[in-house]
């Protein structure tokens, strides 16, 4: 097991190194420099001033040298400073935005599980029943509906017409003056729509996957055995079938981490939520290399870590992998 783990870890490190290398060069292949936001079509930017900027930021050096500088700083956990005019450390900018993105995504993930798993199980147990068809249609509608459209419609109906939920933001203006309970209520009201939109759009993956693994599990011989020895149907489904069927789902969850941050871009922009998705989008448009690289690093670490966990999980569950 130990050799297996260390082998995996070395693999991951190499992959990680590769990701940073490819990302860095790809970003630099895109037309434009981080300083363009300032200098493009700006009469105040004479060639001399532009040269000062590029020198200060080290942009006058060739790209492979800059990559090594970046790597050197990164080894000291320094992501560099943002190229936007605040020139704050990239990590500071991400750090203050990370909690809200993680919060919304983990709550969403929780609800996706809570709703999608029963839907999947139910569909598998009663395939082609009316309720199977209705829920299947429902989750596909959620999948097919563009997130931004659904969000705007809900904002209009619940926020403007009925006026029962706030349209955007994460806190009311008078948040500081509220009691603890009302603070909680206020946050819940603000987070309801973003979470609803995320959950509704993501039910399909897990529920459909659940349906098929569950169906497979139900057709196994041990289910026949369970039923034959006279166990109640509930116990057969939830104790015997579900336990086996849900394992692959947990693996998928590990792999869906990067999707969380990229999916955040849309709803964070529409609902004016100050998270990392919004930051990534702005950084990409402004060619803010240090921010982009920092986010790439975080997402790839999360993904690779998810992979590693999935591998370990499999290794624990299936001895054949360890032996190999």
């Amino acid at each position, binding site marked *: 097991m130990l050799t297996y783990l260390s082998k995996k870890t070395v693999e991951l490190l190499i992959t990680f190194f590769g990701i940073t290398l490819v990302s860095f060069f790809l970003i630099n292949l895109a037309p434009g420099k981080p300083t363009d936001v300032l200098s493009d*079509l700006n009469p105040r930017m004479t*060639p001399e001033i532009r040269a000062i900027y590029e020198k200060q930021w080290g942009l006058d050096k060739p790209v492979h040298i800059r990559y090594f500088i970046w790597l050197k700083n990164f080894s000291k956990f320094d992501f560099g400073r943002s190229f936007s005019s605040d020139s704050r450390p990239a990590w500071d900018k991400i750090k203050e935005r990370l909690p809200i993105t993680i919060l919304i995504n983990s709550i969403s993930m929780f609800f996706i599980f809570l709703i999608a798993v029963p839907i999947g199980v139910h569909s598998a147990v009663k395939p082609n029943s009316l309720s199977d068809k209705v829920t299947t249609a429902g989750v596909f509608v959620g999948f097919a509906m563009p997130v931004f459209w659904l969000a705007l419609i809900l904002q209009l109906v619940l*926020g403007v017409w009925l006026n029962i939920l706030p349209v*955007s933001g994460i806190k009311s*203006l008078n948040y500081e003056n509220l009691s603890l309970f009302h603070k909680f209520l206020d946050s819940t009201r603000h987070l309801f729509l973003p979470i609803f939109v995320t959950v509704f759009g993501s039910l399909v993956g897990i529920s459909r996957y659940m349906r098929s693994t569950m169906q497979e599990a139900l057709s196994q011989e041990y289910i026949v055995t369970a039923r034959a020895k006279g166990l109640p149907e509930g116990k057969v489904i939830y104790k015997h079938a579900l336990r086996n069927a849900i394992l692959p789902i947990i693996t998928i969850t590990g792999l869906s981490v990067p999707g969380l941050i990229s999916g955040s871009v849309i709803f964070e922009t529409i609902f004016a939520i100050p998270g990392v998705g919004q930051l990534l989008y702005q950084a990409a448009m402004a060619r803010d290399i240090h921010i982009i690289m920092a986010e790439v690093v975080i997402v790839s670490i999360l993904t690779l870590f998810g992979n590693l966990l999935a591998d370990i999980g499999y290794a624990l569950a299936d001895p054949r992998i360890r032996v190999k």
Partner: protein
Amino acid sequence: MYFYRHLCRVYFIFSALFFSVSIPAHTENQTDNPSYGDKIIIGSSAEASNLIPMLSSDGASHEVSGFIFNGLVKYDKDLTLIGDLAKSWDISEDGLIITFHLKKGIKWQDGVEFTADDVLFGYKTIIDEKTLSAYKEDYFQVKKAEVLDKYTFRVTYDKPYAPALASWGSLVILPRHILEKEDINKTGFSRKPIGTGPFKFKEWIPGQKVMLEANENYFEGRPYLDGVVIRIIPDPATTFLELKTKGLDWIGLSPLQYQKQTETEFFRKNYKKFRYPSFTYTYLGFNLKHPWFCDKRIRQAIAFALDKEEIVKGVLLGMGSVSTGPYVPDTWPYNPNVKKYEYNPQKAKELLKEAGWQDTDGDGILEKNGKKFEFTILTNMGNTVRIKTATIIQYRLREIGIKVNIRQLEWSAFINWFIDKKRFEAVILGWSIGLDPDQYDIWHSTKIKDKELNFVSFKNSEVDELLEKGRRTFDIEKRKQAYFRIQEILAEELPYIFLYVPDSLPIVSSRFEGIKPAPIGIGYNIEKWYVPRRMQKYTIAK
């Protein structure tokens, strides 16, 4: 986000919100005496980045720092320069020396007195090699800057430089006592500034809002409002929905929102709308190095083939005006009597024929030497107004036998690969116009190098001379003459076809009184805005 990527100077970034000629859409009813209290919630699509004016080049940052900082001079509501922190100034006979006399007793918001040393400190900071400021150029022109006494500051130039006076605005006023020992590029002051202005910085919640509160000791008197909150909402549709729930007090509307979506009982009751020309214009620019477009007759023919009124109606729903030159109508440098090209397709065809273009094979497209008249208009992706404009141009030019293709490009690719490399036939772009009429960088024939702004390669020795003349005198009449003549030449030569000046369309909650629209816009006197006591909304304990 990249709706208007233009020229930016600090004092005209504001144009969309703050400065411009105003025509009130509502008359005011002043029934109450001004009362103190309440806050204004302003919607902003972008977050500020750096509140030190000289370090930021984005409109969002200047919008916030504009509340906090003052300059030695500022533009008054009728677009003339007046003293702000300076009581007065003298310009020497030869135009080389400007001496500012500062107002006495002005305090920084931390209580320390503001003096000429602060101005000198600001100046030294901006010209410092290490300071990452995009505005250095104006200050590199200064030969000598000196503090004569606590309240007198003098600058000497090599050559008279008319835009110099305006450059002593809020860009270079920094509190020396706070920043002297700090690294300006990394200081925390950029997110927690202290100025001399009507509002003090209170709190900045990243990604959500910036909160400012009234400066009790403001030298022009405490503002009536208790505070200003700038809320960051990136999505324009969400911004409008927030307005509908009265979550915002002041935003800029799109033409569609102005004309249709706000024409309801609810909006009439709760908001006031304003409308005035913005300090921007949109143009169709030609690559004058191109073998077809170097011929003036071709450019004029295209001008005759376009109906600018139609474009204003079609893409701006009438919320703008036709443009005839690079200045905003009804401002002092604007020359109303230049050659105009009324819609006349017949004339266009004649000019093209004169230039040798004829439809010989009867397919409706003109030919010359076996080549069809077909070209591509480039514009930046995501700017729907410009794309609609291009589409109308495409239709009108097809009528006189010119085939136009439209291509949209991502901003950076557009600028780096096409504009800078001069690889284009025609472009649709826009400029923000400074309150100073100097446009040397855009029209002078030496400004055609890589990354410079005369990317259409316009070359006219008379314009070169006039540009030089215009920036070397402080005499407004002489400057006016120069810029009037430049506009005549531009209208004749047509390096650009000037299309339209869009209107600024702000909407403000009707509970605010004291808004006095002026040529510069509505925001210039925000410290005099107030809400009658009975209508105050945000009155929670301080």
